């Protein structure tokens, strides 16, 4: 089982690495990070703050774009091009295929994030001429960005298991935007009454809470992050992505592949 899972994971990673679209995105993202010091020159003394904000936001946004663009085709493309036929005629369980695909895309995003993180630190070094202890805090925000990716990949995979790539992309991006404003939704629920309160509360808990996983602003202002926040964020991302992946498996297990 582990051999088949790792084979599917590595093949998914290999596919993404050999896709030129991915390189275009990464180069664009690195350019954005590299140009951050220029933004900083507009406001004297705020170079570091702007560089971190732009850098981390780029890592997050481009990761999400890659997760959606690659994720929506993970299953649909295999069905469309019938490459799945030669996979499912082997001793590969359908759930292994889905989980392998999940880990493959997540691995792609982690490697991509690692490269972009190096770019961000290089930009910081160029701007400040040295790195200090506070800069290590960026890794906490980057870790939480990876947690966001865990959920995004599972979400696009779920949509991809039953919908067309275009609709999958629309659903996934819409949920990302809604989830980014998850805190506002909870505040709205708290202020509401009656049925609206119930519905808003249900929706607020159902949609992925990307707001809680966004620590960019906090680390940019050198505010410490409590260990419990990291722990709860990790548990939340693990459970949420596991539930979404399980949903994708359930759909895919029953699907006739035409």
């Amino acid at each position, binding site marked *: 089982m582990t*051999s*088949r899972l790792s*084979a*599917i994971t590595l*093949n998914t990673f*290999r*596919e993404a690495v*050999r*896709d030129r679209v991915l390189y275009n995105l990464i180069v664009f993202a690195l350019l954005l990070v590299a140009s951050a010091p220029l933004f900083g020159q507009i406001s004297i003394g705020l170079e570091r703050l702007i560089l971190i904000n732009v850098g981390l936001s780029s890592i997050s946004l481009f990761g999400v774009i890659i997760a959606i663009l690659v994720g929506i085709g993970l299953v649909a493309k295999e069905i469309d*091009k*019938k*490459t*799945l*036929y*030669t*996979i*499912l*005629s*082997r*001793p*590969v*369980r359908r759930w292994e295929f889905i989980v392998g695909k999940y880990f493959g895309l997540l691995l792609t995003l982690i490697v991509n994030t690692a490269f972009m993180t190096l770019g961000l630190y290089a930009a910081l070094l160029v701007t400040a001429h040295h790195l200090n202890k506070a800069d290590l805090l960026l890794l906490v925000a980057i870790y939480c960005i990876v947690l966001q990716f865990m959920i995004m990949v599972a979400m696009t995979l779920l949509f991809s298991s039953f919908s067309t790539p275009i609709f999958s992309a629309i659903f996934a991006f819409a949920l990302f935007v809604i989830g980014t404003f998850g805190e506002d939704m909870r505040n709205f629920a708290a202020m509401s009454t009656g049925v609206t309160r119930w519905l808003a509360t249900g929706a607020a808990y159902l949609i992925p809470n990307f707001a809680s996983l966004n620590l960019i602003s906090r680390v940019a202002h050198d505010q410490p992050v409590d260990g419990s926040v990291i722990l709860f964020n990790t548990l939340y991302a693990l459970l949420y992505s596991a539930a979404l992946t399980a949903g994708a498996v359930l759909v895919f297990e*029953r699907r*006739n*592949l*035409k």
Partner: protein
Amino acid sequence: MHAIETQGLSKDYPVGFWKKKLRLALKPLDLQVRVGETFGFLGPNGAGKTTTLKLLMGIIFPTKGTARILGRDYRDPEIKRKIGFLPEQPYFYDYLSATELLDYYGELSGVSSEVRKQRVPELLARVGLSDVGSKQLRKFSKGMLQRVGIAQAIIHDPEVLFLDEPMSGLDPLGRHEIRELIQGLKDAGKTIFFSTHILSDAEALCDRVAIIHKGDLRGIGVVNDLRSTVAGKSEVIWEGAHAAVMARDLLTDMHITGETVRGTVQSSDLDRFLEKLRHQHARLISVTPLRGTLEDYFLSKTKEEEPVSS
């Protein structure tokens, strides 16, 4: 134990806006393929051949019925270690090289890395792709892809092979190469189940064939037996062109050279036709029964009316 056995395997698809109508893709299919046999599954396009193969591979689910492969339920993942599959007009991951693709599929089939290191180059040599093993598949021609397809189907040395239209869309040279490969597998004792609408391929390779049309199994048997079941024709040669005019209604084909006439007559009409020749005082030279072909049998079965369901 049969290599492949289906029991009432059927498939229909809901169609229409409300998905309330059903389109029948495969009527309940009962079929047995013996171990070591090369079995041809013949039918025109859209007959249900690919549907049957997809069902057996677990790509789609049957509406009713079940199947067993080498005595085990076809859904058992372990049985898939013993089967190989070549889909129709296969498309492979074109960002991989042939070597990488075979290595990947070998790993998925549970072949150890030591065995793969040895078997992948061997297989590439066997299908004549040794010199392009490191080339990405996007640069391969259709014939080369088909050979990669055969190689991926046998990377784990399966006992039963399912080949969906393996010669379809290939030029005569490509068809010959694939036919040779299949013949080699047959000689190695593999059970081969292959679907095709190219009857000459089936006639050359198969021990037994089944004819499927509109999702319905129309006939099954040994190729030679099936040919003999087709109502045969006889070739009659005689002297006396004037007799041809009188007996023209019984002839399906006729050529006149001077006074010598060569005509084809349905075997069932042969007695009546010879009687007419005698009446016209024609001189009979020869009567030769013509052998039925698989094509005759195929056409007779695919032109049969569907049984009226009550």
